[in-house]
């Protein structure tokens, strides 16, 4: 996109607005796109992401379902079998769990099972993550489950522009996409033009959000702003951190990630999800496999603790914050001349 086109008509927009616009545009462009879920019609969803869609496209295109997540996902599978492109809303992360059998045993496998004869172009929107003071079951970071399920694409935006572009791409994909929406960024804002929206993004590409030479912070979704803040704070300590936004966990952009780590020689993976068995392990392992001789230090992880998501009054202690990131960066064995980086 050219700078002029992209900047035309830009004004502050929230991630929620960008997501809403992506749904609207997708529905307008393609009559097979159907939005479904709990409270998505008249209410516009509890986060108002589907606001106005039922009015504009009718409840046949954006309809409330009975309250049953396996049923929602299972009927969406049937609708996709018949050539529709359902976009399912799970109301909160933890309320996607009742649908896991449908997700794992069918959504992820139908194309493979039928050797390509029956693809399922299905988008499953899941608001995820904490930091909004939600009571139990409203703040889970459930991405590890999706990640470990071959056949799913797993995508998560961290910026307003990506909320639009990646959701359009997810809906356009001929494969099922679990689209993780970082709920505490719903009201984050950026200058963005709903009238000349970015073209549909490509799935599977990471983006460097802040170039740097000392080390790479590898992150995604809700932790991107925290990492950017940490990178700013790090300059005071003399560290020039690169911040990499994965955007897509599956497929994984090994190329961009490894290029960055090879350049900086050090990396920290940052996410909210519990550390043990979480995405960070996979990311650290594959970076190490691919960049071992470029690493000055082991790839470290900053993650949520290995505990059930805590009550709101304690959540700030659980969530990776700037200090914890900087502490971890400081453990990247800086005896050597870190200001030069260590890449080849």
């Amino acid at each position, binding site marked *: 996109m050219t700078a002029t086109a992209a900047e035309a008509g830009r004004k502050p927009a*929230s991630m929620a607005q960008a997501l809403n616009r992506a749904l609207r545009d997708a529905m307008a462009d393609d009559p097979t796109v159907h939005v479904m879920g*709990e*409270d998505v019609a*008249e*209410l*516009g969803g*509890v*986060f108002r992401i589907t606001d106005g869609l039922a009015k504009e496209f009718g409840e046949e295109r954006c309809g*409330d*379902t*009975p*309250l*049953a*997540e*396996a*049923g929602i996902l299972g009927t969406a599978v049937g609708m996709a079998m018949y050539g529709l492109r359902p976009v399912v809303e799970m109301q909160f992360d*933890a*309320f996607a*769990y*009742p649908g896991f059998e449908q997700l794992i045993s069918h959504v992820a496998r139908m194309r493979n099972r039928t050797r390509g004869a029956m693809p399922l172009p299905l988008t499953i929107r899941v608001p995820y993550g904490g*930091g*909004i*003071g*939600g*009571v*139990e*079951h*409203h703040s889970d970071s459930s991405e590890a489950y999706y990640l470990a399920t071959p056949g799913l694409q797993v995508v998560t935006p961290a910026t307003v522009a990506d909320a639009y572009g990646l959701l359009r791409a997810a809906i356009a994909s001929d494969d099922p996409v679990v689209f993780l929406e970082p709920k*505490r*960024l*719903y*009201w*984050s*804002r950026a200058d963005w033009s709903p009238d000349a929206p970015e073209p549909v993004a490509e799935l599977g590409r990471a983006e460097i959000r802040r170039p740097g030479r000392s080390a790479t912070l590898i992150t995604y979704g*809700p*932790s991107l*702003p*925290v990492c950017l*803040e940490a990178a700013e704070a790090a300059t005071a300590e003399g560290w020039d951190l690169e911040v990499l936004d994965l955007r897509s966990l599956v497929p994984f952009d090994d190329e961009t990630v490894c290029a960055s780590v090879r350049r900086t020689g050090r990396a920290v993976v940052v996410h909210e999800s519990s550390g*043990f068995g979480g995405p960070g392990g996979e990311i650290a392992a594959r970076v190490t496999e691919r960049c071992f001789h470029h690493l000055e230090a082991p790839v470290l992880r900053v993650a949520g*603790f*290995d*505990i*059930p998501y805590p*009550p*709101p*009054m*304690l*959540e*700030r*202690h*659980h*969530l*990776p*914050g*700037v*200090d*914890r*990131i*900087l502490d971890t960066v400081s453990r990247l064995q800086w005896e050597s001349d870190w200001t030069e980086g260590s890449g080849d």
Partner: protein
Amino acid sequence: MTVLEQRGSRRSGSYWPAPPPAWRPRVDPAPLLPDAEPYRLLGTDAAGRIDAALLSDLYEQLVRGRRYNAQATALTRQGRLAVYPSSTGQEACQVAAARVLKEQDWLFPSYRDTLAAVARGLDPVQALTLLRGDWHTGYDPHEHRIAPLCTPLATQLPHAVGLAHAARLKGDDVVALALVGDGGTSEGDFHEALNFAAVWQAPVVFLVQNNGFAISVPLAKQSAAPSLAHKAVGYGMPGRLVDGNDAPALHEVLGEAVERARRGGGPTLVEALTYRIEAHTNADDATRYRTEAEVEEWREHDPIALVERELTERGLLTDDFVQRTRDGAEELAAALRDHMNQDPALEPMDLFAHVYAEQTAQLREQAAQLRAELEAEASDAEGATEGDIAGGSARGAAGEERP
């Protein structure tokens, strides 16, 4: 001559051969079906048989409940509760569910049912920890025989069945009563729980509070059944339909179901027709999906007003009784307000205390990390100016715009 050996024909104008061998109707469906009209006592000829003491007790509880709901909602406005799903309008269900149980029985509430827990005797402050943003369950479930307030819809129902089944296996005199909403009946767990209960003949009673909505979704988008109580026959248990704003009627029907369960007669499904007068929670905007006129219609059918009339009718609604009731309710509200205005003291290190019976090596490491951070924070804070003391992790969440 034929593929299978021929047997002589016996067609004789009536059934031949015998029906399929499996066909022994297992139970008579008729008694399992709900009556065509919801069961009611107040305002009917049968109202006279309601025990006066019960009527007064229910009245007191309803008034306390209404006041409790109002106070809790007020606390959300003051930022003292993170969220409150009010049961205003549903007090009869909440109170009756609590009052039909014996000491040793168990209550399985959902997130909307703190009032039922309070009516069973739980301290309101303890009942509200979850909704306050404090620890998930603020009481010992075993002490009060109240399961943790359950947020994932209908998932508490199999727990109630399992607990009741276990008690029966042990030979204990325990009945479990589980609450669920109309929306919750659509979940698979509702189905599985009721089926297990009926197959096991577990001493459990299911009370569906059909308040017409699941957040914004009206019952008509939730179910096409004649009534939710009609689901019972499909499990082989009785289904009962009750006016959910008629506290004595509910008390009678639930009481019968509980006693039947206690006697080994198995589970019952009770559907109470009621209405959620407030929005789904304080965060919800109900004007998006329903009219004020509909709410008004239900205000006319208020559970407190219904009991009041019967009390008036009998001359029991004396000034003194009304005053005492009101005073009791105000006392409850004042105590709640006072307690909730104190900041709870949560211990961050408790994050690691109860994940497992014994802390794993990994959690010990993580606890040590947090302890070090807290110490660093504390020593930073000593020298720091105000507003600068939040830990690193708070920075990320701070500064976000909230809806």
